[in-house]
């Protein structure tokens, strides 16, 4: 089943929390003068709902075996993860001011053990889902009914390891696994449909044995409803295709492949970012 998500449906007004997290992102980006801004802005609501409303993870239990897991397989979207982990108190917000500095704990991709709350070092694509499946199998062996969330990029699904993983998740009936897909339709070189078309994406995941939902990835109500629906364990792993806008919240960056990654950001560009979220 394919649901057509014209951009109009995704032009949902952002709430105050989403805006304040974006402001924190810009402050972070200002200190590093670089970031995958577009890739982080498309996932901010997905991460926000996951961490604030769904996951059982906190600065107090982030090493507890019984906690939920969130793996940012598309590690380049880490700006969104950093501001949320900081906002929740996994580390002091002052670290955001040192993003990508030589002695910072926060680099251009998230690293395990440097940052509390980061479950695995990611950055090379196609690694987070296999690791998440290992954790989901671990929970099954240990008879722990927790939730294992893995967030993939759309371009990331070019990797063969994703589809190896999908076969196995289905074989092991990992209904505790939720694959979130940030379908912003743009990868590094350009539009996904031109670089390596994924369609029919929903059918692909369904044919691999997943429960599949398609939602507006900026609509918090749709996100939490979709996540809650995965608690109806039915022996099938879950895929939630989140239609999103790359660069969401910054008009000049929205759906603009040039904002996938930016380095050496000028003062003028940073001012533009601040103005956009005023």
């Amino acid at each position, binding site marked *: 089943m394919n649901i057509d998500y014209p951009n109009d449906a995704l032009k949902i007004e952002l709430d105050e929390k989403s805006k304040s997290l974006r402001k924190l992102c810009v402050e972070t980006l200002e200190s590093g003068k670089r970031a995958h801004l577009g890739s982080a802005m498309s996932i901010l609501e997905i991460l926000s709902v996951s961490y604030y409303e769904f996951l059982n993870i906190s600065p107090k239990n982030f090493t507890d*075996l019984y906690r939920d897991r969130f793996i940012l397989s598309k590690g380049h979207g880490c700006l969104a993860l950093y501001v949320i982990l900081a906002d929740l108190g996994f580390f002091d917000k002052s670290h955001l001011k040192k993003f990508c500095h030589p002695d910072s704990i926060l680099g251009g991709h998230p690293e395990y053990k440097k940052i509390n709350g980061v479950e695995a070092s990611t950055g090379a694509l196609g690694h987070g889902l*296999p690791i998440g499946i290992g954790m989901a199998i671990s929970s099954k062996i240990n008879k722990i009914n927790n939730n294992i969330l893995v967030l993939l990029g759309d371009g990331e699904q070019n990797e063969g390891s994703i589809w190896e993983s999908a076969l196995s998740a289905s074989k092991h009936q990992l209904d505790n696994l939720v694959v979130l897909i940030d379908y912003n339709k743009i990868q590094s070189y350009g539009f996904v449909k031109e670089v390596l078309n994924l369609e029919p994406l929903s059918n692909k995941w369904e044919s691999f044995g997943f429960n599949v939902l398609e939602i507006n990835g900026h609509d918090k109500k749709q996100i939490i409803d979709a996540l809650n629906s995965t608690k109806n364990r039915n022996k099938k792993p879950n895929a939630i295709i989140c239609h999103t806008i790359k660069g969401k919240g910054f008009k000049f960056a929205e759906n603009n492949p040039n904002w996938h990654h930016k380095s050496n950001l000028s003062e003028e560009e940073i001012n533009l970012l601040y103005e956009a979220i005023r």
Partner: protein
Amino acid sequence: MRKACLNSIYKQAKKNNKIIFIGSDLGPGVLDDFKTDFPDRFFMEGVSEQFIIGMSAGLAFDGFLPYVNTISTFLTRRCLEQIIVDLCMHNLPVKLIGNGGGLVYAPLGPTHQAVDDIALMRSIPNMSIISPCDAHEMEALIEKSVNWPHPLYVRIAKGGDKIISDKIQTFEIGKSITYKESNKAVILSTGIMTQKALEIITDLSNEDIDVGLTHLHTVTPLDYKKIDELIKNVEHIFTLEEHFIVNGFGTSILEYCNNNFQEYTNKIYRFALPFDFPDQYGNQETLINHMGLNNEKIKKEIKQKIGKA
């Protein structure tokens, strides 16, 4: 050696409920007992090696001790990034059991011949490498591997059913075994090449030529203490391995000595496979000989080097 390795993993799994076995698409009936006794800890995941490495990392994050088994080249070549990122960057205690280390799969051609596996694995921080000389040593080292807290690559070689380590009492990862001492010349060997080295030093001894033998089942980390002792006190050091001459066991010893005992580096001479894809089939022994590691040739070169030719 492969059977001893897998049986040893099964034996350890009976004692430790954290041990997990993950195979790719191994032969029918492999570890059936394991599968029957511990079905929730036995996985056969198909020809999806890259996924399997990540899966093993996920299990290890939660405290399990995965043993991942398939053909060496499919682990070390195909999954190099997964091994680096998923296992070694996180320094997880996952054991990679590589079938066919060296030229075991001679008749199957270069896609299956693991003559670069040590080079690939020793280039990764946190990775350890063991290369036992026979089934007895393999079994003992698998027992030791259970508590080894880092990623570990286990090189399985066939090399017939010969057992040379049965009189050895103690096996420790990282600790070498000296079969014969000599101040004149010593062969440092790893894997089943130690069987060959034993034949060579016996033949030379019969000619009244005194050559010692130290076996290093652990390629990484090297037994630095032993190497320090030998490089200082022995006139000639020979290394012997069933691997490309580049970046392997001998290279690691040469590099270490070059960094620490530069004045002695010219004592070292390396016997290894030429740096080219093998161009013949046959069997392990014929291909090893074809590629220049035959006993007569090695003996002749040793004699020339130590002035006994």
